[in-house]
Protein backbone atom coordinates (compact mmCIF):
# COMPACT_ATOMS: atom_id res chain seq x y z
CA UNK A 1 0.00 0.00 0.00
CA UNK A 2 1.69 3.29 -1.11
CA UNK A 3 1.66 6.17 1.30
CA UNK A 4 -0.63 9.16 0.86
CA UNK A 5 1.71 11.44 -1.12
CA UNK A 6 2.76 8.79 -3.63
CA UNK A 7 -0.87 7.89 -4.18
CA UNK A 8 -1.73 11.51 -4.87
CA UNK A 9 1.11 11.70 -7.34
CA UNK A 10 -0.06 8.55 -9.05
CA UNK A 11 -3.66 9.62 -9.27
CA UNK A 12 -3.30 13.30 -10.11
CA UNK A 13 -0.04 13.06 -12.01
CA UNK A 14 1.56 15.82 -9.94
CA UNK A 15 2.72 16.57 -6.45
CA UNK A 16 1.25 19.02 -3.97
CA UNK A 17 3.03 22.37 -3.84
CA UNK A 18 4.38 21.72 -0.36
CA UNK A 19 5.89 18.42 -1.51
CA UNK A 20 7.93 20.03 -4.29
CA UNK A 21 11.67 20.36 -3.93
CA UNK A 22 13.28 23.79 -4.33
CA UNK A 23 14.35 23.17 -7.92
CA UNK A 24 10.90 21.99 -8.85
CA UNK A 25 9.39 25.17 -7.36
CA UNK A 26 11.18 27.44 -9.79
CA UNK A 27 9.70 27.98 -13.24
CA UNK A 28 11.63 26.31 -16.05
CA UNK A 29 14.24 28.87 -17.16
CA UNK A 30 14.22 28.06 -20.87
CA UNK A 31 11.85 29.58 -23.42
CA UNK A 32 8.85 27.62 -24.55
CA UNK A 33 7.21 27.47 -27.96
CA UNK A 34 3.43 27.56 -28.05
CA UNK A 35 1.23 27.29 -31.11
CA UNK A 36 -1.73 29.65 -31.14
CA UNK A 37 -4.08 28.78 -33.97
CA UNK A 38 -4.56 28.16 -36.89
CA UNK A 39 -7.95 27.45 -35.45
CA UNK A 40 -8.41 29.16 -32.13
CA UNK A 41 -11.66 30.43 -30.65
CA UNK A 42 -10.17 33.81 -29.75
CA UNK A 43 -8.60 34.47 -33.13
CA UNK A 44 -10.81 36.32 -35.59
CA UNK A 45 -9.57 34.47 -38.61
CA UNK A 46 -7.63 31.37 -39.38
CA UNK A 47 -4.08 32.39 -38.62
CA UNK A 48 -1.28 30.60 -36.86
CA UNK A 49 1.09 32.27 -34.41
CA UNK A 50 4.15 30.42 -33.21
CA UNK A 51 4.77 32.10 -29.89
CA UNK A 52 8.08 31.89 -28.08
CA UNK A 53 7.21 32.62 -24.49
CA UNK A 54 9.12 33.28 -21.33
CA UNK A 55 6.52 32.21 -18.79
CA UNK A 56 3.48 34.22 -19.87
CA UNK A 57 5.49 36.89 -21.66
CA UNK A 58 5.88 36.82 -25.43
CA UNK A 59 9.47 37.00 -26.57
CA UNK A 60 8.79 36.41 -30.24
CA UNK A 61 5.71 35.73 -32.30
CA UNK A 62 5.92 34.31 -35.80
CA UNK A 63 2.60 35.07 -37.48
CA UNK A 64 1.78 32.77 -40.37
CA UNK A 65 -1.20 33.62 -42.57
CA UNK A 66 -2.30 31.74 -45.66
CA UNK A 67 -4.77 29.19 -44.32
CA UNK A 68 -7.60 30.88 -46.19
CA UNK A 69 -5.76 31.44 -49.46
CA UNK A 70 -8.30 30.85 -52.25
CA UNK A 71 -6.28 32.20 -55.17
CA UNK A 72 -8.32 35.37 -55.67
CA UNK A 73 -5.79 36.75 -58.12
CA UNK A 74 -5.35 33.58 -60.17
CA UNK A 75 -9.11 33.02 -60.36
CA UNK A 76 -9.66 36.64 -61.38
CA UNK A 77 -7.24 36.31 -64.27
CA UNK A 78 -9.49 33.59 -65.64
CA UNK A 79 -12.83 35.32 -65.07
CA UNK A 80 -14.48 38.19 -66.93
CA UNK A 81 -14.43 41.59 -65.24
CA UNK A 82 -18.04 41.14 -64.10
CA UNK A 83 -17.42 37.62 -62.82
CA UNK A 84 -14.82 38.97 -60.41
CA UNK A 85 -17.47 40.74 -58.31
CA UNK A 86 -18.53 37.57 -56.47
CA UNK A 87 -14.86 36.90 -55.69
CA UNK A 88 -14.43 40.37 -54.21
CA UNK A 89 -17.41 39.68 -51.94
CA UNK A 90 -15.34 36.97 -50.38
CA UNK A 91 -12.31 39.14 -49.67
CA UNK A 92 -13.53 41.14 -46.73
CA UNK A 93 -16.73 39.24 -46.14
CA UNK A 94 -17.84 41.60 -43.37
CA UNK A 95 -18.01 44.59 -45.72
CA UNK A 96 -18.40 43.18 -49.24
CA UNK A 97 -20.02 46.28 -50.74
CA UNK A 98 -16.83 48.33 -50.34
CA UNK A 99 -14.83 45.63 -52.15
CA UNK A 100 -17.41 45.67 -54.96
CA UNK A 101 -17.03 49.44 -55.29
CA UNK A 102 -13.24 49.23 -55.27
CA UNK A 103 -13.14 46.68 -58.05
CA UNK A 104 -15.70 48.58 -60.13
CA UNK A 105 -13.66 51.78 -59.76
CA UNK A 106 -10.45 50.06 -60.84
CA UNK A 107 -12.08 48.70 -64.01
CA UNK A 108 -13.71 52.08 -64.70
CA UNK A 109 -10.32 53.73 -64.39
CA UNK A 110 -8.76 51.55 -67.11
CA UNK A 111 -11.88 51.93 -69.25
CA UNK A 112 -11.66 55.71 -68.98
CA UNK A 113 -15.16 56.13 -67.57
CA UNK A 114 -13.92 56.95 -64.06
CA UNK A 115 -16.14 59.63 -62.58
CA UNK A 116 -18.70 59.38 -65.36
CA UNK A 117 -21.00 57.03 -63.50
CA UNK A 118 -24.49 58.58 -62.97
CA UNK A 119 -24.95 60.59 -59.79
CA UNK A 120 -27.65 58.33 -58.41
CA UNK A 121 -25.48 55.26 -58.83
CA UNK A 122 -22.62 57.01 -57.04
CA UNK A 123 -24.91 57.91 -54.15
CA UNK A 124 -26.19 54.35 -53.94
CA UNK A 125 -22.59 53.13 -53.88
CA UNK A 126 -21.77 55.47 -51.02
CA UNK A 127 -24.89 54.42 -49.12
CA UNK A 128 -24.16 50.71 -49.38
CA UNK A 129 -20.44 51.30 -48.68
CA UNK A 130 -21.16 53.21 -45.51
CA UNK A 131 -23.63 50.56 -44.40
CA UNK A 132 -20.92 47.98 -45.01
CA UNK A 133 -18.40 50.03 -43.06
CA UNK A 134 -20.85 50.03 -40.18
CA UNK A 135 -21.27 46.25 -40.28
CA UNK A 136 -17.47 45.96 -40.31
CA UNK A 137 -16.95 48.18 -37.27
CA UNK A 138 -19.91 46.67 -35.41
CA UNK A 139 -18.47 43.18 -35.90
CA UNK A 140 -14.97 44.23 -34.94
CA UNK A 141 -15.96 46.00 -31.73
CA UNK A 142 -18.62 43.47 -30.80
CA UNK A 143 -16.38 40.45 -31.26
CA UNK A 144 -13.45 42.06 -29.46
CA UNK A 145 -15.65 43.00 -26.53
CA UNK A 146 -16.96 39.45 -26.35
CA UNK A 147 -13.45 38.04 -26.27
CA UNK A 148 -12.76 40.22 -23.26
CA UNK A 149 -15.88 38.91 -21.55
CA UNK A 150 -18.37 41.65 -22.46
CA UNK A 151 -20.93 39.37 -24.03
CA UNK A 152 -23.82 41.85 -23.87
CA UNK A 153 -22.02 44.38 -26.06
CA UNK A 154 -21.48 41.64 -28.62
CA UNK A 155 -25.15 40.71 -28.70
CA UNK A 156 -26.27 44.35 -28.96
CA UNK A 157 -23.90 45.07 -31.83
CA UNK A 158 -24.69 41.89 -33.71
CA UNK A 159 -28.35 42.75 -33.41
CA UNK A 160 -27.63 46.14 -35.00
CA UNK A 161 -25.50 44.48 -37.67
CA UNK A 162 -28.36 42.15 -38.50
CA UNK A 163 -30.67 45.14 -39.15
CA UNK A 164 -28.14 46.45 -41.65
CA UNK A 165 -27.72 43.04 -43.27
CA UNK A 166 -31.48 42.77 -43.62
CA UNK A 167 -31.58 46.14 -45.35
CA UNK A 168 -28.69 45.21 -47.63
CA UNK A 169 -30.55 42.02 -48.41
CA UNK A 170 -33.55 44.02 -49.61
CA UNK A 171 -31.16 46.00 -51.82
CA UNK A 172 -29.08 43.22 -53.32
CA UNK A 173 -30.96 40.00 -52.67
CA UNK A 174 -28.22 38.43 -50.59
CA UNK A 175 -27.49 38.84 -46.93
CA UNK A 176 -23.72 38.58 -47.06
CA UNK A 177 -22.30 38.08 -50.54
CA UNK A 178 -24.02 40.91 -52.32
CA UNK A 179 -22.31 41.16 -55.77
CA UNK A 180 -24.40 44.28 -56.14
CA UNK A 181 -22.18 46.85 -57.81
CA UNK A 182 -21.43 46.66 -61.53
CA UNK A 183 -18.86 48.33 -63.74
CA UNK A 184 -20.52 51.62 -64.69
CA UNK A 185 -23.17 51.66 -61.99
CA UNK A 186 -25.09 49.30 -59.78
CA UNK A 187 -27.14 46.24 -60.70
CA UNK A 188 -30.54 47.46 -59.52
CA UNK A 189 -32.15 50.50 -57.96
CA UNK A 190 -32.92 50.81 -54.26
CA UNK A 191 -36.19 49.08 -53.31
CA UNK A 192 -39.34 51.06 -52.57
CA UNK A 193 -39.48 52.33 -49.01
CA UNK A 194 -35.71 51.99 -48.52
CA UNK A 195 -35.45 55.61 -47.41
CA UNK A 196 -37.85 55.16 -44.53
CA UNK A 197 -36.47 51.83 -43.39
CA UNK A 198 -32.88 53.10 -43.37
CA UNK A 199 -33.87 56.24 -41.45
CA UNK A 200 -35.64 54.09 -38.92
CA UNK A 201 -32.71 51.67 -38.74
CA UNK A 202 -30.18 54.46 -38.17
CA UNK A 203 -32.24 55.82 -35.31
CA UNK A 204 -32.27 52.44 -33.62
CA UNK A 205 -28.53 51.99 -34.20
CA UNK A 206 -27.90 55.38 -32.62
CA UNK A 207 -29.53 53.98 -29.51
CA UNK A 208 -27.52 50.77 -29.63
CA UNK A 209 -24.22 52.64 -29.93
CA UNK A 210 -25.14 54.76 -26.91
CA UNK A 211 -26.00 51.59 -24.98
CA UNK A 212 -22.75 49.86 -25.86
CA UNK A 213 -20.69 52.96 -25.13
CA UNK A 214 -22.33 53.02 -21.72
CA UNK A 215 -21.36 49.41 -21.23
CA UNK A 216 -17.76 49.65 -22.40
CA UNK A 217 -16.32 53.16 -22.15
CA UNK A 218 -16.25 53.34 -18.38
CA UNK A 219 -15.88 49.64 -17.82
CA UNK A 220 -12.82 49.08 -15.67
CA UNK A 221 -12.09 45.60 -16.96
CA UNK A 222 -12.48 46.60 -20.61
CA UNK A 223 -10.42 49.75 -20.08
CA UNK A 224 -7.58 47.92 -18.34
CA UNK A 225 -7.43 45.21 -20.98
CA UNK A 226 -7.33 47.75 -23.84
CA UNK A 227 -5.44 50.77 -22.57
CA UNK A 228 -1.72 50.76 -23.30
CA UNK A 229 -1.94 47.39 -25.04
CA UNK A 230 -0.44 46.96 -28.50
CA UNK A 231 0.58 50.60 -28.82
CA UNK A 232 2.29 51.77 -31.98
CA UNK A 233 3.99 55.09 -32.69
CA UNK A 234 2.90 57.34 -35.52
CA UNK A 235 6.18 56.90 -37.40
CA UNK A 236 5.98 53.11 -37.13
CA UNK A 237 2.39 53.12 -38.33
CA UNK A 238 3.31 55.12 -41.44
CA UNK A 239 6.39 53.08 -42.31
CA UNK A 240 4.53 49.82 -41.79
CA UNK A 241 1.89 50.92 -44.28
CA UNK A 242 -0.92 51.06 -41.74
CA UNK A 243 -4.06 52.81 -42.91
CA UNK A 244 -7.63 53.20 -41.75
CA UNK A 245 -8.72 53.11 -38.11
CA UNK A 246 -5.43 51.59 -36.94
CA UNK A 247 -3.30 54.37 -38.42
CA UNK A 248 -5.77 57.02 -37.33
CA UNK A 249 -5.63 55.72 -33.75
CA UNK A 250 -1.87 56.40 -33.90
CA UNK A 251 -2.47 59.97 -34.98
CA UNK A 252 -2.04 59.57 -38.74
CA UNK A 253 -4.57 61.97 -40.18
CA UNK A 254 -5.32 60.09 -43.38
CA UNK A 255 -8.60 58.99 -44.86
CA UNK A 256 -8.93 58.10 -48.55
CA UNK A 257 -12.45 59.51 -48.62
CA UNK A 258 -11.13 62.94 -47.68
CA UNK A 259 -7.55 62.98 -49.04
CA UNK A 260 -8.12 61.36 -52.42
CA UNK A 261 -11.84 61.99 -52.76
CA UNK A 262 -13.75 59.64 -54.99
CA UNK A 263 -17.42 59.12 -55.84
CA UNK A 264 -19.61 61.76 -54.17
CA UNK A 265 -17.64 62.09 -50.93
CA UNK A 266 -16.66 65.72 -51.72
CA UNK A 267 -20.37 66.59 -51.46
CA UNK A 268 -20.70 65.05 -48.03
CA UNK A 269 -19.64 66.42 -44.70
CA UNK A 270 -17.92 64.18 -42.18
CA UNK A 271 -15.11 64.26 -39.65
CA UNK A 272 -12.08 62.00 -39.55
CA UNK A 273 -11.48 60.92 -35.95
CA UNK A 274 -7.81 60.71 -34.95
CA UNK A 275 -6.36 59.13 -31.82
CA UNK A 276 -3.26 59.96 -29.83
CA UNK A 277 -1.76 56.93 -28.13
CA UNK A 278 -2.23 54.28 -30.84
CA UNK A 279 -3.17 51.53 -28.39
CA UNK A 280 -6.13 49.18 -28.51
CA UNK A 281 -8.34 51.60 -26.60
CA UNK A 282 -7.76 54.34 -29.18
CA UNK A 283 -8.53 51.92 -31.99
CA UNK A 284 -11.80 51.12 -30.27
CA UNK A 285 -12.64 54.81 -29.74
CA UNK A 286 -11.80 55.70 -33.35
CA UNK A 287 -14.05 52.92 -34.62
CA UNK A 288 -16.96 54.00 -32.44
CA UNK A 289 -16.59 57.58 -33.66
CA UNK A 290 -16.45 56.37 -37.26
CA UNK A 291 -19.72 54.53 -36.70
CA UNK A 292 -21.31 57.84 -35.77
CA UNK A 293 -19.76 59.53 -38.80
CA UNK A 294 -21.18 56.77 -41.02
CA UNK A 295 -24.64 57.52 -39.67
CA UNK A 296 -24.04 61.20 -40.41
CA UNK A 297 -22.96 60.45 -43.99
CA UNK A 298 -25.93 58.13 -44.54
CA UNK A 299 -28.41 60.76 -43.36
CA UNK A 300 -26.92 63.32 -45.75
CA UNK A 301 -27.01 60.81 -48.60
CA UNK A 302 -30.69 60.10 -48.05
CA UNK A 303 -31.39 63.83 -48.25
CA UNK A 304 -29.23 64.52 -51.28
CA UNK A 305 -29.69 61.43 -53.47
CA UNK A 306 -31.04 62.54 -56.87
CA UNK A 307 -33.38 60.60 -59.13
CA UNK A 308 -32.05 59.30 -62.41
CA UNK A 309 -30.39 56.33 -64.08
CA UNK A 310 -28.32 53.85 -62.08
CA UNK A 311 -26.17 52.64 -64.96
CA UNK A 312 -23.90 54.53 -67.31
CA UNK A 313 -25.27 54.97 -70.81
CA UNK A 314 -22.33 53.34 -72.56
CA UNK A 315 -22.90 50.27 -74.67
CA UNK A 316 -19.40 48.96 -73.90
CA UNK A 317 -20.22 48.33 -70.26
CA UNK A 318 -24.00 48.41 -69.81
CA UNK A 319 -26.17 45.40 -70.63
CA UNK A 320 -28.93 46.25 -73.14
CA UNK A 321 -32.40 46.63 -71.62
CA UNK A 322 -34.20 43.29 -71.28
CA UNK A 323 -37.01 44.30 -73.66
CA UNK A 324 -34.41 44.97 -76.38
CA UNK A 325 -32.44 41.81 -75.66
CA UNK A 326 -35.59 39.75 -76.13
CA UNK A 327 -36.88 41.61 -79.20
CA UNK A 328 -33.96 42.70 -81.37
CA UNK A 329 -31.20 40.50 -82.70
CA UNK A 330 -28.52 43.20 -82.29
CA UNK A 331 -29.24 43.64 -78.62
CA UNK A 332 -29.37 39.90 -78.10
CA UNK A 333 -25.94 39.48 -79.67
CA UNK A 334 -24.64 42.33 -77.54
CA UNK A 335 -26.07 40.73 -74.44
CA UNK A 336 -24.50 37.40 -75.37
CA UNK A 337 -21.08 38.90 -76.11
CA UNK A 338 -21.23 40.91 -72.93
CA UNK A 339 -21.91 37.86 -70.80
CA UNK A 340 -19.64 35.39 -72.59
CA UNK A 341 -16.67 37.59 -73.52
CA UNK A 342 -16.98 40.20 -70.83
CA UNK A 343 -16.46 43.92 -70.96
CA UNK A 344 -13.58 44.67 -73.31
CA UNK A 345 -11.13 46.82 -71.44
CA UNK A 346 -8.37 48.47 -73.50
CA UNK A 347 -4.79 47.56 -72.65
CA UNK A 348 -3.37 49.50 -69.73
CA UNK A 349 -2.73 49.43 -66.02
CA UNK A 350 -4.38 51.32 -63.18
CA UNK A 351 -4.56 51.35 -59.40
CA UNK A 352 -7.81 52.39 -57.77
CA UNK A 353 -8.33 52.54 -54.03
CA UNK A 354 -11.15 53.18 -51.63
CA UNK A 355 -11.46 53.51 -47.90
CA UNK A 356 -12.41 50.03 -46.79
CA UNK A 357 -13.54 48.96 -43.35
CA UNK A 358 -9.91 48.51 -42.34
CA UNK A 359 -8.32 51.19 -44.46
CA UNK A 360 -7.03 51.71 -47.95
CA UNK A 361 -8.33 48.84 -50.05
CA UNK A 362 -6.95 48.95 -53.55
CA UNK A 363 -7.10 47.02 -56.78
CA UNK A 364 -4.29 47.08 -59.30
CA UNK A 365 -5.36 45.91 -62.74
CA UNK A 366 -3.39 45.23 -65.88
CA UNK A 367 -5.73 44.89 -68.87
CA UNK A 368 -4.76 43.44 -72.24
CA UNK A 369 -7.76 44.42 -74.35
CA UNK A 370 -9.77 41.25 -73.77
CA UNK A 371 -12.70 40.70 -71.44
CA UNK A 372 -10.58 39.23 -68.68
CA UNK A 373 -7.98 40.99 -66.53
CA UNK A 374 -4.39 40.10 -67.41
CA UNK A 375 -3.46 40.73 -63.82
CA UNK A 376 -5.60 41.57 -60.83
CA UNK A 377 -3.95 42.45 -57.56
CA UNK A 378 -5.68 43.31 -54.32
CA UNK A 379 -3.95 45.58 -51.83
CA UNK A 380 -5.55 44.20 -48.70
CA UNK A 381 -5.26 46.32 -45.56
CA UNK A 382 -5.62 43.26 -43.30
CA UNK A 383 -2.47 41.71 -44.71
CA UNK A 384 -0.44 44.85 -44.06
CA UNK A 385 -1.87 45.26 -40.57
CA UNK A 386 -1.25 41.64 -39.70
CA UNK A 387 2.41 42.08 -40.61
CA UNK A 388 2.72 44.66 -37.81
CA UNK A 389 1.28 42.28 -35.24
CA UNK A 390 4.61 40.54 -34.67
CA UNK A 391 5.93 43.81 -33.27
CA UNK A 392 2.73 44.65 -31.40
CA UNK A 393 2.50 41.44 -29.38
CA UNK A 394 6.18 41.39 -28.46
CA UNK A 395 6.65 41.91 -24.72
CA UNK A 396 2.98 41.51 -23.91
CA UNK A 397 1.28 38.61 -22.16
CA UNK A 398 -0.38 35.78 -24.04
CA UNK A 399 -3.77 37.07 -22.90
CA UNK A 400 -3.04 40.41 -24.62
CA UNK A 401 -2.82 38.73 -28.00
CA UNK A 402 -6.62 38.53 -27.93
CA UNK A 403 -7.43 42.28 -27.74
CA UNK A 404 -4.54 43.13 -30.08
CA UNK A 405 -5.78 40.76 -32.76
CA UNK A 406 -9.35 41.81 -32.13
CA UNK A 407 -8.54 45.45 -32.74
CA UNK A 408 -6.27 44.77 -35.74
CA UNK A 409 -9.45 43.19 -37.10
CA UNK A 410 -7.74 40.80 -39.43
CA UNK A 411 -10.29 39.41 -41.86
CA UNK A 412 -8.98 36.08 -43.07
CA UNK A 413 -10.55 36.30 -46.50
CA UNK A 414 -9.02 39.67 -47.21
CA UNK A 415 -5.65 38.94 -45.68
CA UNK A 416 -5.11 35.61 -47.39
CA UNK A 417 -6.89 36.51 -50.68
Amino acid at each position, binding site marked *: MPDQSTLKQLVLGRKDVQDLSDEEHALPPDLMTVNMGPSHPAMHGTVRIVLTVDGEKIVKGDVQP*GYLHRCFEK*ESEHATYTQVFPYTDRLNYVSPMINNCGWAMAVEKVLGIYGKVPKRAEYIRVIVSEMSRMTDHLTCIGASAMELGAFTAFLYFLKAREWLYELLETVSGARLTHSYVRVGGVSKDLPAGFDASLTNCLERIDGVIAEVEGLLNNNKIFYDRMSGIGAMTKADAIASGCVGPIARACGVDYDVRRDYPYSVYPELEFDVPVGTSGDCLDRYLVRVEELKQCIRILRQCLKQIPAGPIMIDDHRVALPPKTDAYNTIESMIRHFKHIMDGIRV*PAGEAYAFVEGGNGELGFFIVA*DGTGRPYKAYCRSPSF*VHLSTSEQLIKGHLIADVVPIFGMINMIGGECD*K
Partner: protein
Amino acid sequence: MAQKVLDALTAKWADAIVRTGSAHGDEIVWVKRDSLLDVATWLRDDPAMAFDSPVFCTCIDWLDWHPTGRPPSETWTEDKPRFTVCYQLRSLAHHHRLRVEVELPEHDPRLSSLAGLWPAFNWQERETFDMYGIRFDGHPDLRRIYMYEEFIGYPLRKDYPKEKRQPLVRRDDLIDAPHKAEHK
Protein backbone atom coordinates in the same frame (compact mmCIF):
# COMPACT_ATOMS: atom_id res chain seq x y z
CA MET B 1 -0.01 66.68 -59.79
CA ALA B 2 2.86 64.37 -59.43
CA GLN B 3 4.38 65.36 -62.75
CA LYS B 4 6.75 67.45 -60.59
CA VAL B 5 8.01 64.22 -59.04
CA LEU B 6 8.71 62.70 -62.43
CA ASP B 7 10.53 65.87 -63.55
CA ALA B 8 12.64 65.91 -60.42
CA LEU B 9 13.47 62.23 -60.88
CA THR B 10 14.52 62.70 -64.50
CA ALA B 11 16.65 65.69 -63.55
CA LYS B 12 18.45 63.98 -60.70
CA TRP B 13 18.56 60.35 -61.73
CA ALA B 14 18.81 60.50 -65.51
CA ASP B 15 21.22 57.55 -65.58
CA ALA B 16 19.17 55.37 -63.28
CA ILE B 17 15.85 55.75 -65.04
CA VAL B 18 14.66 53.87 -68.09
CA ARG B 19 11.61 56.03 -68.74
CA THR B 20 8.70 57.73 -67.01
CA GLY B 21 5.06 57.90 -67.83
CA SER B 22 1.53 58.53 -66.61
CA ALA B 23 -1.45 56.23 -66.95
CA HIS B 24 -4.98 56.75 -65.68
CA GLY B 25 -3.92 59.24 -63.04
CA ASP B 26 -0.97 57.17 -61.81
CA GLU B 27 2.60 58.38 -62.27
CA ILE B 28 5.05 55.61 -63.09
CA VAL B 29 8.82 55.54 -63.20
CA TRP B 30 10.78 52.62 -64.63
CA VAL B 31 14.03 52.31 -62.72
CA LYS B 32 17.10 50.25 -63.62
CA ARG B 33 17.44 47.32 -61.32
CA ASP B 34 20.88 48.19 -59.94
CA SER B 35 19.85 51.71 -58.99
CA LEU B 36 16.57 50.82 -57.28
CA LEU B 37 17.87 51.06 -53.73
CA ASP B 38 19.54 54.46 -54.29
CA VAL B 39 16.52 55.95 -56.01
CA ALA B 40 14.16 54.56 -53.38
CA THR B 41 16.27 55.90 -50.51
CA TRP B 42 16.27 59.33 -52.14
CA LEU B 43 12.50 59.17 -52.71
CA ARG B 44 11.98 58.46 -49.04
CA ASP B 45 14.48 60.94 -47.58
CA ASP B 46 14.35 63.96 -49.86
CA PRO B 47 12.01 66.52 -48.25
CA ALA B 48 10.47 67.49 -51.58
CA MET B 49 9.63 63.84 -52.29
CA ALA B 50 8.96 62.47 -48.78
CA PHE B 51 7.40 59.20 -49.88
CA ASP B 52 6.89 57.95 -46.36
CA SER B 53 3.96 55.60 -46.96
CA PRO B 54 4.44 52.29 -48.72
CA VAL B 55 1.26 51.09 -50.41
CA PHE B 56 1.90 47.80 -52.16
CA CYS B 57 4.44 45.66 -53.92
CA THR B 58 3.56 43.17 -56.62
CA CYS B 59 4.82 41.74 -59.88
CA ILE B 60 3.53 41.40 -63.44
CA ASP B 61 4.45 38.35 -65.49
CA TRP B 62 4.46 39.27 -69.20
CA LEU B 63 4.70 35.71 -70.56
CA ASP B 64 1.19 35.69 -72.12
CA TRP B 65 1.14 39.34 -73.13
CA HIS B 66 -0.60 39.63 -76.51
CA PRO B 67 -2.60 42.84 -76.13
CA THR B 68 -5.47 43.19 -78.56
CA GLY B 69 -5.83 46.52 -80.29
CA ARG B 70 -2.10 47.19 -80.02
CA PRO B 71 0.65 46.71 -82.61
CA PRO B 72 2.17 43.20 -82.73
CA SER B 73 5.52 44.70 -81.66
CA GLU B 74 4.11 45.05 -78.15
CA THR B 75 3.60 41.31 -77.79
CA TRP B 76 6.02 39.73 -75.35
CA THR B 77 8.94 37.87 -76.89
CA GLU B 78 11.78 36.08 -75.21
CA ASP B 79 14.23 38.92 -75.66
CA LYS B 80 12.07 41.26 -73.57
CA PRO B 81 12.13 41.37 -69.77
CA ARG B 82 9.62 38.89 -68.43
CA PHE B 83 8.81 40.37 -65.03
CA THR B 84 8.00 43.84 -63.80
CA VAL B 85 8.06 44.43 -60.06
CA CYS B 86 5.87 47.37 -59.00
CA TYR B 87 6.21 49.38 -55.82
CA GLN B 88 3.43 51.86 -55.13
CA LEU B 89 4.40 54.75 -52.85
CA ARG B 90 2.51 57.65 -51.36
CA SER B 91 3.49 60.80 -49.54
CA LEU B 92 1.38 61.86 -46.59
CA ALA B 93 2.79 65.40 -46.57
CA HIS B 94 2.60 66.18 -50.29
CA HIS B 95 -0.29 63.92 -51.24
CA HIS B 96 1.48 62.67 -54.32
CA ARG B 97 1.74 59.07 -55.42
CA LEU B 98 4.26 57.23 -57.52
CA ARG B 99 4.69 53.73 -58.86
CA VAL B 100 8.26 52.53 -59.18
CA GLU B 101 8.60 49.68 -61.65
CA VAL B 102 11.63 47.51 -62.25
CA GLU B 103 11.94 45.19 -65.22
CA LEU B 104 13.62 41.85 -64.63
CA PRO B 105 14.89 39.20 -67.04
CA GLU B 106 13.37 35.72 -67.05
CA HIS B 107 16.47 33.83 -65.96
CA ASP B 108 17.66 36.11 -63.20
CA PRO B 109 14.62 37.58 -61.45
CA ARG B 110 16.34 39.30 -58.56
CA LEU B 111 16.52 42.86 -57.24
CA SER B 112 17.37 44.60 -54.00
CA SER B 113 14.82 44.47 -51.25
CA LEU B 114 13.15 47.65 -50.03
CA ALA B 115 12.07 46.04 -46.75
CA GLY B 116 14.85 47.90 -44.98
CA LEU B 117 13.46 51.26 -46.08
CA TRP B 118 9.78 50.56 -45.53
CA PRO B 119 9.00 47.67 -43.16
CA ALA B 120 5.63 47.18 -44.87
CA PHE B 121 7.43 45.70 -47.87
CA ASN B 122 8.77 42.87 -45.71
CA TRP B 123 5.62 40.78 -46.03
CA GLN B 124 4.68 42.14 -49.44
CA GLU B 125 8.01 41.09 -50.91
CA ARG B 126 7.57 37.70 -49.29
CA GLU B 127 4.21 37.47 -51.02
CA THR B 128 5.75 38.46 -54.36
CA PHE B 129 8.47 35.86 -53.87
CA ASP B 130 5.89 33.24 -52.95
CA MET B 131 3.66 33.96 -55.94
CA TYR B 132 6.19 34.90 -58.65
CA GLY B 133 9.54 33.59 -57.48
CA ILE B 134 11.23 37.00 -57.47
CA ARG B 135 14.37 36.98 -55.29
CA PHE B 136 14.79 40.07 -53.12
CA ASP B 137 18.44 40.55 -52.17
CA GLY B 138 18.92 41.67 -48.61
CA HIS B 139 15.45 40.67 -47.47
CA PRO B 140 15.60 39.68 -43.79
CA ASP B 141 13.31 36.67 -43.97
CA LEU B 142 12.51 35.61 -47.53
CA ARG B 143 10.27 32.55 -47.26
CA ARG B 144 6.83 31.58 -48.50
CA ILE B 145 3.91 33.28 -46.82
CA TYR B 146 0.65 32.00 -48.34
CA MET B 147 1.74 28.65 -49.70
CA TYR B 148 3.27 25.85 -47.66
CA GLU B 149 6.99 25.25 -47.70
CA GLU B 150 6.63 22.00 -49.63
CA PHE B 151 4.92 23.79 -52.52
CA ILE B 152 6.77 23.56 -55.82
CA GLY B 153 6.57 26.37 -58.37
CA TYR B 154 5.15 29.88 -58.30
CA PRO B 155 1.37 29.90 -58.65
CA LEU B 156 0.80 33.36 -60.15
CA ARG B 157 3.29 32.89 -62.97
CA LYS B 158 1.49 32.59 -66.27
CA ASP B 159 3.04 29.18 -66.96
CA TYR B 160 1.57 27.69 -63.77
CA PRO B 161 -1.68 25.98 -64.87
CA LYS B 162 -4.74 27.18 -62.99
CA GLU B 163 -6.10 23.67 -62.52
CA LYS B 164 -2.84 22.17 -61.27
CA ARG B 165 -3.15 20.48 -57.91
CA GLN B 166 -0.35 19.66 -55.50
CA PRO B 167 -0.95 17.25 -52.67
CA LEU B 168 0.77 18.31 -49.47
CA VAL B 169 3.54 15.81 -48.86
CA ARG B 170 5.65 16.34 -45.76
CA ARG B 171 9.33 16.56 -46.51
CA ASP B 172 11.69 15.65 -43.71
CA ASP B 173 14.43 17.93 -44.97
CA LEU B 174 12.26 20.95 -44.20
CA ILE B 175 11.75 20.09 -40.55
CA ASP B 176 15.14 21.47 -39.58
CA ALA B 177 14.93 24.52 -41.79
CA PRO B 178 16.85 27.39 -40.16
CA HIS B 179 13.86 29.51 -39.23
CA LYS B 180 12.26 26.55 -37.51
CA ALA B 181 15.36 25.62 -35.55
CA GLU B 182 15.28 29.09 -34.08
CA HIS B 183 12.05 28.31 -32.21
CA LYS B 184 13.37 25.18 -30.63
